């Protein structure tokens, strides 16, 4: 039997297909109720060492809609981290003030480190370029809702595939559902070789390209990502790839696409996706952002044992 009670949510790799579907099903039920008090008396500590809008606010909204309370910070400058306190010490101390921790940190592996040193559950809200599992749950939920299934889809990932943690997590999860994957990026932002190998080991049909031209007609979903300036140590390297892709209604029509194509984006977008897409039936990224609340409600309720 699937149970999430007291489990850490660190990496999508820690969940099997049945567990992924369990959370999606729970989110569907959560979508039907707005406010409940199932987490009354519970406190969530929201620790964001890196900026965030959607993830942080949707977690806070989810907790409050379930009757719980939220403490925390949105940037580390106001915490003891600014005085040089280690992450391990910070989470050990904060553990005494809450029932669950949601953590975003710029170092990869930070959520696992936190989970190793505290007893209460840790939810990874993004650790550097590594994982962002709750984003993956909501991406899967959005694909399932808009395409009607997760099975056997052809997905194109576009943009920053090297540092884009949402791409890594989603590709890993979609491998359970027999997806065929096209990875489209400039050469300097290709999927890390070890990750590509992991997918191939899992018998995923995956292909690398530098353009959507010639492949766009095969795609059921395009998962577009921002090229993240903050991940580049060298600004010259960033300028070389900035604006290399710009999806618009016109470019998609020129490339040729399926009528029922859906375009997802974890947001924020900068210049990789034109406003002209927003009013089309392809665009589901605003729904995707909204789906963060039911998914996070489902995860909080399941991990805190309010739903068995």
């Amino acid at each position: 039997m699937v149970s999430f009670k007291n489990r850490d949510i660190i990496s999508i790799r820690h969940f099997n297909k049945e567990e992924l579907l369990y959370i999606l099903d729970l989110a569907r039920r959560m979508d039907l109720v707005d406010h409940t008090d199932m987490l009354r008396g519970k406190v969530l500590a929201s620790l964001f060492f890196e900026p965030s809008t959607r993830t942080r606010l949707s977690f806070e909204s989810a907790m409050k809609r379930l009757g719980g309370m939220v403490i925390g910070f949105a940037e580390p400058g106001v915490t003891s981290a600014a005085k040089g306190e280690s992450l391990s010490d910070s989470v050990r101390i904060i553990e005494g003030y809450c029932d669950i921790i949601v953590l975003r940190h710029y170092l990869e592996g930070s959520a696992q480190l936190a989970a190793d040193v505290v007893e209460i559950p840790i939810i990874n809200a993004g650790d550097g370029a590594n994982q962002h599992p709750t984003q993956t749950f909501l991406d899967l939920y959005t694909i399932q809702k808009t395409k009607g299934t997760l099975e056997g889809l052809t997905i194109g990932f576009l943009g920053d595939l090297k540092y884009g943690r949402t791409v890594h997590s989603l590709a890993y999860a979609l491998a359970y559902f027999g997806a065929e994957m096209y990875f489209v990026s400039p050469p300097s932002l290709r999927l890390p070789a070890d990750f590509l190998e992991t997918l191939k080991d899992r018998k995923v049909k995956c292909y690398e390209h530098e353009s959507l031209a010639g492949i766009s007609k095969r795609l059921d979903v395009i998962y577009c990502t921002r090229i993240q300036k903050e991940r580049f140590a060298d600004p010259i390297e960033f300028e070389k790839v900035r604006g290399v892709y710009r999806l618009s209604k016109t470019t998609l029509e020129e490339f040729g696409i399926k009528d029922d194509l859906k375009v997802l984006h974890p947001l924020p977008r900068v210049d990789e996706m034109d406003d002209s897409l927003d009013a089309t039936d392809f665009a589901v990224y605003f729904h995707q952002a909204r789906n963060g609340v039911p998914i996070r409600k489902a995860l909080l309720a399941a991990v805190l044992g309010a739903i068995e």
Partner: protein
Amino acid sequence: MKHLDVAAIKDGSVIDHIDSKSTLKVTEILNIQNEEQVVLVGMNLTSKFLGKKGIIKIEGKIIDQKEANKIALIAPNATVNIIKDYEVVKKFQIVVPEIIEGIVKCFNPNCVSNYNNIKAKQHVVNKKPIKLQCHYCERIMSTKDIVLI
């Protein structure tokens, strides 16, 4: 009588068939340098299998399988002989463990294990060829990426 390049010990452990270049690293990993009793180290000794091999003899210390496995990444062919009164009473091969701790540096410069004095830890996801997955950042290292701490 058989000639020994490195003198015999009465009681203790002998680590044999070490890749010669890794011999001193083995003493580091097993913290042999801080032993107070006699330690004999031989390098560049003739070996049928390795060409040149290293050997370490430690008087008065019994190395168990778990401890010996720490050297699996640098001396995968090594054998350990436990000596009692100049006789070999037990002999075992090194086995690649499931988890490697405090031996290999994560190759990802943005991994949390490279900060705050955190002990590096990897899960062995493949033994031949060796592939290690960082416990923290999940990146997978192959032999070419392995740097010992």
